[in-house]
C-alpha cells in the first residue's frame, strides 16, 4: 500500500520511526513495533541515522513487511553513489516496498566513522528526480529498464520551524518540482510557526505530515535547541518539563505536550510522523490524547 493513496483519499496518515540495531537481530525491534505501532499506518526505517553504522534500512524494511507492517524505506545520499541508490531502489521494488523517503543524510563526520568518505553523489532533490526517472522506465545513465518499471510513493522532508523558513520553502519547492509526493516535517513544538509555514506551503498542493517528538525532559529539550537543526522547544514548554521531573521522566508531561501540538496543528496538516526515539511505548497514549 502506498501512503500517497491514503493522502489522496483524504485520510489522516500516522507514521512512526524505527531505527535498526547495530547488529542483525531484529526480533526486539519487530516485537516492539508489533506491540506499540500496530495502530499506525506505516513505519519509517532510518538509514544509518546520524551517520552511525547500523543494520541496513532495506533489509529491516523487508523483515518488518514480513511481520505485517508497512515500512517506509529511508534512503540517504551519504553512503552510496547513484549506481548503488538506483540499484537499491530496484531491490526495494522487488521486495514489494512501495514507500520511500528521500534524504540527503547527515555528514559522515558527525557519526561513528568520521574518517569515512562522504559520498553525496546525489542529494535529496536529485534522488527524488531519480525515483521519478526509474518510474518512467529509465535510469540516470539514460538506459531503459527491463520489464515493468517500479512505482513508489516518494516522500521528502522539510523543517517548518527552521531559522530561515524562506530558504526552506525554496528547497521544498525544488523537491516538489523533482517529484516529491508528500512531506514529513522536522519535529514541531511551535504550532504558530507551523501554521504560518503551512499557509505558505499550501501552494505546492502536497500533503504534509507534522513531525512530532515526545520530549523526554528539560535536558533533552535544551540539547535539541542547541544541537538539532530546525528544532526549537519554547521556554514555556521547557518550564513545564522542568517543573515536575518525575512526571516528565514517566513520559506524562512529554505526551501531553506532543498531544497539544498535534491538536493545534491537525487542521493544517494531512498526517503526523512520530519520532519516538526509544519511547515507542508512549505512542498509543499519545495518539489517544491527541484524539487520533
Amino acid at each position: 500500500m502506498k501512503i500517497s493513496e491514503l493522502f489522496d483519499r483524504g485520510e489522516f496518515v500516522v507514521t512512526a520511526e524505527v531505527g535498526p540495531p547495530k547488529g542483525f537481530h531484529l526480533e526486539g525491534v519487530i516485537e516492539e513495533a508489533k506491540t506499540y505501532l500496530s495502530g499506525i499506518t506505516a513505519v519509517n526505517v532510518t538509514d544509518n541515522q546520524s551517520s552511525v553504522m547500523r543494520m541496513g534500512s532495506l533489509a529491516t524494511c523487508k523483515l518488518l513487511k514480513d511481520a505485517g507492517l508497512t515500512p517506509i524505506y529511508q534512503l540517504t545520499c551519504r553512503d552510496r553513489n547513484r549506481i548503488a541508490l538506483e540499484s537499491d531502489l530496484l531491490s526495494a521494488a522487488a521486495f514489494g516496498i512501495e514507500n520511500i523517503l528521500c534524504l540527503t543524510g547527515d555528514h559522515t563526520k558527525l557519526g561513528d566513522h568520521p574518517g569515512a568518505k562522504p559520498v553525496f553523489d546525489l542529494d535529496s532533490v536529485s534522488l527524488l528526480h531519480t525515483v521519478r526517472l526509474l518510474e518512467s522506465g529509465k535510469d540516470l545513465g539514460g538506459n531503459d529498464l527491463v520489464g515493468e518499471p517500479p512505482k513508489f510513493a516518494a516522500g521528502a522532508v522539510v523543517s517548518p520551524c527552521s531559522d530561515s523558513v524562506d530558504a526552506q520553502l525554496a528547497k521544498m519547492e525544488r523537491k516538489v518540482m523533482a517529484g516529491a509526493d508528500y512531506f514529513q516535517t522536522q519535529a514541531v513544538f511551535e504550532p504558530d510557526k507551523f501554521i504560518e509555514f503551512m499557509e505558505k506551503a499550501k501552494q505546492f498542493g502536497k500533503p504534509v505530515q507534522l513531525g512530532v517528538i515526545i520530549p523526554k525532559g528539560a535536558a533533552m529539550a535544551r540539547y535539541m535547541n542547541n544541537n538539532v537543526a530546525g528544532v526549537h522547544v519554547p521556554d514555556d514548554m521547557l518550564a513545564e518539563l522542568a517543573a515536575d521531573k518525575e512526571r516528565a521522566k514517566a513520559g506524562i508531561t512529554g505526551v501531553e505536550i506532543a498531544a497539544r501540538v498535534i491538536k493545534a496543528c491537525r487542521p493544517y496538516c494531512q498526517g503526523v510522523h512520530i519520532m519516538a526515539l526509544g519511547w515507542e511505548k508512549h505512542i498509543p497514549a499519545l495518539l489517544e490524547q491527541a484524539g487520533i
Partner: protein
Amino acid sequence: MENYTKYRLKDAEELSSVLAGTDKIFVVACNKCFKEFTSVDEPDCEAFVKLAEEQGKTVTGSFKVDFLCNRIQTERKLAGVIPEGTECVFVVSCGLGIQTMAELVKKPVFAASNSLNYTGHHGMALTKKACDACAQCFLNITGGICPVVDCSKSLLNGQCGGAKDGKCEVDPNKDCAWEKIYRKLEQTGRLEEFEKQPVQLRDYNKVNFKVISEYVQSIREKRLDGYYGGVHPSERKEMSEHCPVEVFPESDIMVIPLSQASGKPANPIVQVGDHVKVGQKIGEKAGFISAAVHSSVSGEVIAIEERVHPATRGGLSVVIRNDHKDTLDESVKPKGALEDLSPEDIVKIVEDAGIAGMGGAGFPTSVKLVPGKPIDAVLINACECEPMITADHKLLLGYPDEVIFGLRAVMKAVSSPKGIIVIEDNKPDAIELFKSKCEGLDGIEVVVARTKYPQGAEKMLIKRVLGRMVPSGGLPADVGAVVCNVSTVKAISDAIQLGMPLIERIVSVTGECIKNPGNYLIRFGVSAKDVIEACGGLTCDDVVTKMGGPMMGIPIPNVDVAVIKGTNGIIAYENDHTQEVECIKCGRCADVCPMELEPLYFNRLLKDGNIQGLKDMNINDCMECRCCEYICSSKIPLVTRIKEGKAAVRGLN
C-alpha cells in the same frame, strides 16, 4: 610547454540560455594563469563579446585583467571601469575570479566559463597529475609512485586485478599503477617491507576544510600584515646574532672609495704623498646628492686611483698606508649640546660628517633632513628585515642612548613632534631594551612590527606604521614622514656628540659558508677579503659572496673590495645552482610585490622590446627588493631584467 588552461567558455547553447533575459552586459575576462606566458591577450573575451552581440545584446564594455582572483589588486584596477547603465556582469574566468567579481560587484554576476578540473596539477607539474593532496601521503609505502593519482581507482592495498598486459582497465594507454609500484619496490629491494605494511585505509576526515580554513586565515593575516605583498625568507640570523661586536683591526693599506653614497662621487681634496689623520675629510661633496668622505686611519696617501667596487658607482679610491698611530684629526671634537644647535646646524654637521643611509641605499642623509615639507613623524628603521644580517640588532643592543640621541637630532632638524623606532618582533631583547629606555620620553615611541621582508623599505615602513601610502614616484616627505636607518642615526649621534665623521660601522660577517661568523666594527677601507680570512675563511669553494644581505646585497665575486658606509654585511652562502626556465605565469611575483607591480610583465615586455609598455606598467616604482626574484618558480633573474628595463626607459626620455 603545453598551455595549461584554467577555464573554458561554456558552450554556445548554454551561454545563449544564460544570456536570455539579460542585457546591457559588461564583460570581465581574466588573462589566465599557469600557462606559457607568450601573449598578453587571451581570445576568450572577444569570443564571448561576439557571441553576446550576435544574440542582440548590448555590451557596455569589456575589461581584461590578470589574476582576477587577486581581490586587492582587482578591486583597485576595476575602480570606475564598469559604465553607468550596465545591468549585469559576465565573467570569463575560473571560479575564483567569478566569485571575486560576485563579491565586488553589486549587480548580478554570471559565469561565462567552466573551470576545469585539475586536481593533481600542482607546482611545475602543470600538464600532468602528480598529487591529489589526500593529506596522508602514501608515497612511503609505494616507492614514490602515487597510488591515489596513478591508479584509476586510487587503490591503496595493491592492484585490482583488472589490468591487461600491464595496462589499466579504464584506459588501455595507461600503465597499471600498482604494477609500476611493484616493479619499483622490487628494484629498490623493498618488497618485503611492503608485504609487512598494515592494511591501508583512507581517512577522509583528514582533509578537513576547517584545518584548511585555519591555514588560510593565518596566511591571510601574515601575508597582508601592514602592507600588500612581501615574503618571509628563512631568517638565518642565528649564525651571528649571539656573537658580540668585536673591533676589527685596521689594515696596513686602506682603500677608501670616494663614491660611497648615491649621487655624485666626492672630489678628492688630498694628494698622493699627503699625511692624513683619522676623521680628516679626504673627499668633498660634489653636488646636491653626494656625500663627503673621510679618512678612517692616519697615514700616508699612496695612491688616488680607479678601483673596481660593485657596490659603488665606480670612480676614484684614496689608498692610504696606515701608520697605525690612529692620530685624530683636529676637526674631531664635540659639536655642543643638542639644545644649542639649530636645525640648520644639525644638517651642516651631518653633511660635514659624510653621513649617508647605512641601510644599503646610501642616500645622503643631510638631503633627507631638509624635506621642504611639514614632517610629523620620524621613523627609525630598526627592522633589519634582510635575512642573515644582525648588524643593526647589535647596534640597538650596544648603543641605545646614541640611537635615541640621534633620533632627537633628526626630529629637531625636521621639526617633527614624533619619533618612532620600529623593531621587528624577531629581536625581543632590543624591543625590551628600547621600551624601557623610551618610557616617559616625550614624543618617542617603540613600534613592534611582525617580521616580513621588505619591511625596512621606506614606503613599506610608512604604510605599516603610519598607514600612509607614498604616491607613485613620491618621497616619504610627501606624506609627512622621514625615515632613517638605525645605524644612520647612531652615526648622527657620533657626529654631534663626538664630532667623529662616518668612518666605521658594524658589519655582520655571516652565512653558511663563513667558517666563524661574527659581528665586527670595521673602518671603511678594510678589504672584505681580509675580513673573511679573519673569520676563518670560506668553508667551500662554490659560494655566492655578497656585500649586504642575501636579498638586496650586491654580489662581490672578487671579495678584495673595501667595506664602505652601506656595508651592513659580508655574507657567503652555498651557490644554489639554477637555470632560468620559461615563465609559467604563476603570478607569485605579482602576489609578493610590495609596490603592487606585476614583475612578470617586465620580463615579457623587455623581451618584446616594448619599452613604452615597461614605463606604462610603472617599472620605475620598483625598488629592487628582489621579492619577485626570490619567489619566481621559473628562476627568472627578474631584478636584472628590471634594471635593464629601467635603463631602457631612461633612454626613452
